[in-house]
Structure formats: structure tokens, C-alpha cells
């Protein structure tokens, strides 16, 4: 924990990223409460109006306040991303630890399956899952988790392989500590940092994926609005109201940048040798 604090102190860009992320979260939490408009409040007369004192970022095609929609969209987009990453962590880490710890054929099976998933261009996995099961919140989360979990598994598995040769693990093993306990209480705490870094990248990928699928109309369905679906609406009015497609994009861009930057900074602290290697996840 201490190293994370020093990281933020030394790396001003990382600090800016952390602050940005905090601001977006505060916006998502607070704005829906203090906003004078509801997310489904329609002002048909003011549809597609530009930024003004009344509507700071303008309105969408049904006359809903854009700023309010963005805040509610943040809840949905970030919610999907976080849920997908929780799913990825809960399914990926046990698999990765088993693969790394047991080695042999179990390792091969898990890692080759992972390689197969890595072989697909990311968005194809998302499209496939949504095509098979239809666009719904659980499907989206599973699709996004499937896209990011291979990266997590690879990182954790490699960390476990390194850890298990360390003296403290070998001696615990010699003392007769059961493998399950060994994994949980001695190895797991030592691989938390790489997991946090990878989850940071994973969240960025999740937000990008939700935006892509939402843009294609394959995320949450109206009247619910995520950042992706807002982009879709904005794109269809690109010639009339160019700002509609601009604002959600800026939020996504800034959010993804912040997550990537924090992930990079964290990785530099963990292992300076990995600096400048790009493996954020599928695009």
C-alpha cells in the first residue's frame, strides 16, 4: 500500500489520473441526486438543443438533459465494467492459481484455452456472446469478462509460478501446510499487486467494449442510457447536433486514459523492466 502512495507522490501524471478517476466517480454518484432533471424527464420542446444555461450540455433527441444522462450513463457503464471485472477476478484467479501451482497437464489445458481466447480479436468475442444470448446486462458482463479474463489469468499464473519457487512457499510446503491453505494465505497476498494493475487495464477495456457494443445498439436498451448508447444516439444526429456525440466520447476517453495511466504507473513500480511493454488487453 505504501508503494502506491509513493508512486502517486512521485508520478504527477499518475496523480492526475487518480484525481480524474475520483472526479468521474463523484460525478456518477452525486450528480443524479443534485441534478434538477430526471434521467427519463422528457422536454419535447427542447429536443436536440445546444449547450445553454438551462441544459449545460444540451439535450438528446427526446429532450432529456445530456449532463444528467451522462451521470446516469456513468453509473451503468462503470457498473457494467466493475461487475465484469469482479466476474473476471472471481473466475480467473482460482483458475490461474491452480494452473500455476499444479503445472503439468492442468496448466496446459487452462493456458491453451486462454491462448485460444487471446487469439480472437477482442470485440469479436463480445459480438459473438451478444449474438448468441441477446443484449442484456448479464450477457454484457459475461462477454466483457470473457474478453479480459485471459490477460488476468496469464499474469496471475506467471506470478504464481514465480512465487511458488520462493523459499517461504517451499518451507511452508515442507512444514506440511495444505496446498489450499498455502495458495490462499501465503501466495495470494503476494500476487495482489499485479492483479490490481491488470484489473485497472481490464476496467479500461471493459469501458471501451461497453461503449463499442452500446454504439452498435447491443448494450442496455432505451430508455436506459449508457455512455455507449448515448454515442449511438449522438452519431445518428451528427450533422445536426455534433456535440451530442462529442461529450460521451470525451468522458470515455478520459476515463480509459486514467485507468491505463494508473495501470502503467503501478506496473512500473512493481517491475521497472516491464516499462513500455504494451499489453493492456484486447482493443
Amino acid at each position, binding site marked *: 500500500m505504501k508503494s502506491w502512495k509513493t508512486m502517486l507522490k512521485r508520478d504527477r501524471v499518475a496523480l492526475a489520473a487518480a484525481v480524474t478517476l475520483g472526479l468521474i466517480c463523484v460525478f456518477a454518484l452525486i450528480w443524479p441526486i443534485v441534478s434538477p432533471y430526471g434521467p427519463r424527464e422528457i422536454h419535447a420542446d427542447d429536443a436536440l438543443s445546444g449547450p445553454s444555461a438551462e441544459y449545460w450540455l444540451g439535450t438528446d433527441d427526446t429532450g432529456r438533459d445530456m449532463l444528467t444522462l451522462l451521470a446516469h450513463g456513468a453509473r451503468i457503464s462503470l457498473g457494467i465494467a466493475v461487475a465484469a471485472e469482479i466476474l473476471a477476478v472471481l473466475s480467473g484467479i482460482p483458475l490461474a492459481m491452480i494452473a500455476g501451482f499444479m503445472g503439468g497437464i492442468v496448466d496446459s489445458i487452462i493456458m491453451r484455452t486462454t491462448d485460444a481466447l487471446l*487469439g480472437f480479436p477482442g470485440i*469479436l468475442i463480445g459480438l459473438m456472446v451478444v*449474438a448468441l444470448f441477446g443484449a442484456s446486462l448479464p450477457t454484457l458482463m459475461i462477454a466483457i469478462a470473457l474478453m479480459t479474463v485471459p490477460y488476468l489469468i496469464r499474469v496471475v499464473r506467471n506470478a504464481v509460478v514465480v512465487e511458488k519457487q520462493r523459499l517461504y512457499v517451499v518451507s511452508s510446503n515442507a512444514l506440511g501446510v495444505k496446498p489450499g491453505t498455502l495458495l490462499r494465505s501465503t501466495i495470494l497476498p503476494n500476487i495482489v499487486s499485479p492483479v490490481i494493475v491488470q484489473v485497472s487495464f481490464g476496467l479500461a477495456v471493459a469501458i471501451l467494449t461497453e461503449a463499442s457494443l452500446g*454504439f*452498435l445498439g447491443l448494450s442496455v436498451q432505451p430508455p436506459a442510457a449508457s455512455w455507449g448508447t448515448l454515442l449511438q444516439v449522438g452519431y445518428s444526429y*451528427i450533422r445536426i447536433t*455534433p456535440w451530442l456525440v462529442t461529450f460521451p466520447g470525451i468522458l470515455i476517453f478520459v476515463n480509459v486514459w486514467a485507468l*491505463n495511466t494508473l495501470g502503467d504507473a503501478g506496473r512500473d513500480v512493481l517491475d521497472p523492466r516491464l516499462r513500455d511493454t504494451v499489453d493492456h488487453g484486447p482493443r
Partner: protein
Amino acid sequence: MYGGQPGVSFEEVEAARERLGYNDPILVQYGGWLTDIVKGDLGNSVVNGLPVGQVIGEKIWPSVQLAIVALFLSVFIAVPGGVLAALRRGSLADRFLTGFVSAGIAIPQFWLGILLILVLAIQFQIFPASGYVSPTEGVGLWAMHIALPALTLAITLAAPTMRFVRSSMLDVLSEQFVDVAKAKGLSSHRVIWVHALRNALLPAVTIVGLQAGTLMGGAVLIEWVFGFPGLGWLLVNAVTSRDYPVLQAALLLFVAAFLLINFAVELLYRVLDPRLR
């Protein structure tokens, strides 16, 4: 009401299901699909009834063109940029290029496309906002139509490549053979662009190769945004209209192309690095 259309009776739907084999067990359906594939028959689109082979065949060529132009452009941006950043490490140019890299990685690809449409197609009306024209109908027109989607892809692809080129160039520049080359009295141009760059490009070849593989399917959203009638556009259409025969065939093609390109990169790597032979 069945299949979203009014006036279709239950019997008609059942007859259609029977005819299309949707009532067979899933394994029988899969087996049938697989045997047909081996025979070269990809089935017919459920939307317009055309043979899938024909539907996909029309879309391959535009996608391949887009991929090639985008990759060339991206290398053209990434290599000089990465070398410059490495040579002037810590300078203003380096910091600018590093910023370009983080922005290029974080920006949603299709949103960058939308921004380019906003500025270059709607505001200044230099390029058309969408569509595709075959080069046989005029190379100039073809270039105008392919420019924006290719540029969008190139910018986002160039970002990670540039980062790779920069860091491997930094590694190579500190190696002894570079000093030897300098000591031999070679011009610094020759040392950088011939001796150092050749070694620094090896890791970049891998990443460009991977990108080429993902481009076959990864241009999905870009093709959609620019109304570019390629494989990605076809895929999105197949997903939204639930045209499963087309979807299956397109995915099969993506995976095949991905594996083939990875294999080609492996071979290329051996040509470039004699140590691997």
C-alpha cells in the same frame, strides 16, 4: 406473430424451421454445417437467401485494402516517431510523442473516426463521410473514400507500435555494436537507420503482425461508422439481423485469417532474425 412479422401462421413457421433444419438436434445441425463447409458450401443467408460464399466474397476485397492501407500508414507514423522519440529522449518532441501514444491507446477507435468525420467530412468537407469506391472506378475516388477509415485505424494502431519502437530503439542504441559502427566512422545516419533500426524493428514486427491479424475483424466498428462495405460491416449486420449462416462463416474466416497471418509473421521473423533459423 412470428419472427417479428405479422400475418405469418404457426404452420408456416414450423414448415420453415423444418426446411432449414432448425428442428434437428444441435449436433446434427453442427455436423451438417461442418460437412457442407468441407464441400465448400457455406449455406445461404437467411436474410436475402444469397449463397454465403458470394455474400462474403464481395466484402473481403474492400476489407483487405483497408487493412493494408491502414497498416502501411501506421508503420509510416510509428517508426519515424518512435526513432525520433528514442534519439531525443526527454525532449519536448519525446514528451509530445509519448502523449500521442497514451492518447492513441485510450481513445475509443470508432469515436476517433466520428471526430474525423465531424472535422474533415462535415466541417471542412474534404473527404466523403462514408462509402467505398472500387479502385477500378477511379483511383482518386478510391483514395478519398478509404482515407478517413484508414487514417483512423492507422492512428490507433501506430500508438502501441511507436511505444515499442521507442523502447527497443533505446535498448539497441546502448548496445556495443552501435559503438563499434560509430567507431568505424560510419555516418550517424547510417548507424541509426541501417544498423540500429534493423535490430530495433524485430519486436515491432511481432506487434504489427498481431495487429494485421486483429485488423481482419478488428475494423468492425470502423467499417460500421464509415459505412464501409467490408467484412466488419457484414459481421455487425449479421449480428443485428441474426443471420447466423453469414455470422458463422465470417467468424470462421476471421479466425482462419488470424492464424494464417500469425504464421506468416512467424516466417517473416525468421527471415529478419538469422539467430532464429
